[in-house]
């Protein structure tokens, strides 16, 4: 009988750091759109706001109830996208999603995904991939609602 993947790969220090100290947490003004996303299987809930300055993401603020993976992933995401353009952010989402669906076989680019590379371990736990993508999906939705031009790429699982 095989053991599952090592749980220590899932709960890396980077992830628990972000879980403990969520970056950019809390809901702030001003914002152009606010979305509420849930993960119906486990009940995680996320309210997320975006504020755009032209095509640059000026602020992402959020209020989240959920597991360490979804909360940490949202925190890491805000570090990555605040100050970046919508296009750059969505390109990062694509890379992150590619890594998450790679079952642990995709080599992430740390210079691009920064702390996001810690989630490569989560990719070995299919049931938790959705947790790691919750914040990103909410961001994409919020950008669309804020009127940003978001590339229409493949569905999110």
């Amino acid at each position: 009988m095989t053991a599952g993947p090592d749980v220590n790969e899932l709960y890396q220090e980077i992830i628990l750091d972000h879980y403990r100290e969520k970056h950019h947490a809390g809901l702030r003004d001003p914002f152009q759109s606010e979305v509420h996303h849930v993960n119906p299987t486990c009940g995680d809930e996320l309210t997320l706001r975006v504020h755009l300055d032209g095509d640059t993401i000026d602020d992402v603020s959020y209020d989240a109830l959920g597991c360490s993976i979804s909360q940490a992933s949202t925190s890491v995401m805000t570090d990555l996208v605040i100050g970046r353009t919508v296009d750059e952010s969505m390109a990062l989402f694509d890379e992150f999603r590619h890594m998450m669906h790679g079952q642990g076989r995709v080599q992430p680019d740390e210079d691009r995904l920064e702390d996001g590379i810690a989630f490569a371990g989560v990719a070995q736990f299919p049931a938790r991939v959705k947790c790691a993508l919750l914040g990103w999906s909410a961001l994409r939705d919020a950008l669309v609602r804020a009127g940003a031009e978001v590339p229409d790429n493949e569905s999110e699982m």
Partner: protein
Amino acid sequence: MYDVDAVRRDFPVLERTVGEFPLTYLDSANTSQKPRRVVETMAQHLLLHNANVARAMHLLGSEATEAYEGARAKVAAFVGARRPEEIVFTKNASEALNLAAYTLGSGLRPGDEVVISVMEHHSNIVPWQLACERSGATLRWFDVTDEGRLDLERAEREGLINERTRVVSLTWVSNVVGTVNPIARIAEQAHAVGATMVVDGSQAVPQLPVSVSALGADLVAFTGHKMLGPTGVGVLWGRYDLLAELPPFLGGGEMIEVVRMSGSTFAPPPHRFEAGTPPIAEAVGLGAAIDYLTVLGMDAVAAHEQEITRYALGALRGIEGLRILGPTEAIDRGGAISFVLDGVHPHDIMQLLDARGVAIRGGHHCARPLHERLGVQSSTRASGYLYTTEEEIDRLAEALVFTRDFFAGRMASGSGTARRRAAREEARRLRGAQPTQPDQTRTEVGA
């Protein structure tokens, strides 16, 4: 004397290990494991007696029909129905409750009231919401006390069940907090105002000796897969005279009497409610599960469940930082135990327990309103069954203490963020102009 070790030998899955740990299956309120006998009976049926039921007139057709109707008779006897025709096979308890809500709902009018409770599984909430939306009837509900029991006093005070009430639909045993509800007493109140009493027996029928005739209910829904049977077969028991009054639910083959292009007439119960080819092998498997439960004896099964629940409540009460939702004593209480652990989200608890072979459920267990009422976002649930041992409960408790300490330790270990950032910057500087190398020491990709 109940021999749990002998019982366990009938369930091959319980011999599995997860890495170095023995499998500890404590998710039986979600679905139970299956004994060999159930699987073998289904295999035998499919391999040697397979045919469609009722419409096939050849030898195999007769055998299949006999097996399917035989399973109906076993279910009827098991729950104390007055006749097999009171047993309707569905695909699960949700479909059984939808059948009840759709057919009873067709008689609802604006001003009528349907009463449920805040502790219901979503499958005993949503079908009634839909029925009320369609008919203009009003949905009302029992609140619960902070201890997770139906707030009967408040219901009394507010006249919850009154002359406008047409249907009362309640769970017998809560799938979250384990509460056993006083169905007979509420059925009496419902009947006094002419309302129909519907019961969600999904968690009760697997655990308790049941006599639907003595319960006082009019319709009882339950499912095969939580009582050692396969998935894909559920049951709606109904008082025959009530079933005979209800309109059809799904239309199709086998539920009709005469079909003309201008209109059709319908078969009597139970076939009126079984459109299309039913889950034949699954019903046969459920029959085998009932044989198994009958040999053990439901009194013994219930006594074991009580003993394990009492033991588990004691073990969990002893864990600092853990709070049990609902009744903390094994009195009027079923085997599902939900709890919260300070500082650790249920999804994370589930993950760490899973790594130690302990299978439990984290989330809102299809009962979001109850969690909201109890002031928690989600919870962790452990649920044993007739094969659960005290040793398994000890493993659960150990794994929970490990989980609590794992997170407490890491969450208290000071800020790693600044340190980590500096390390990353340093690594970047050292890499200089060289092509970026994935950081193997940190990500262990593909390890």
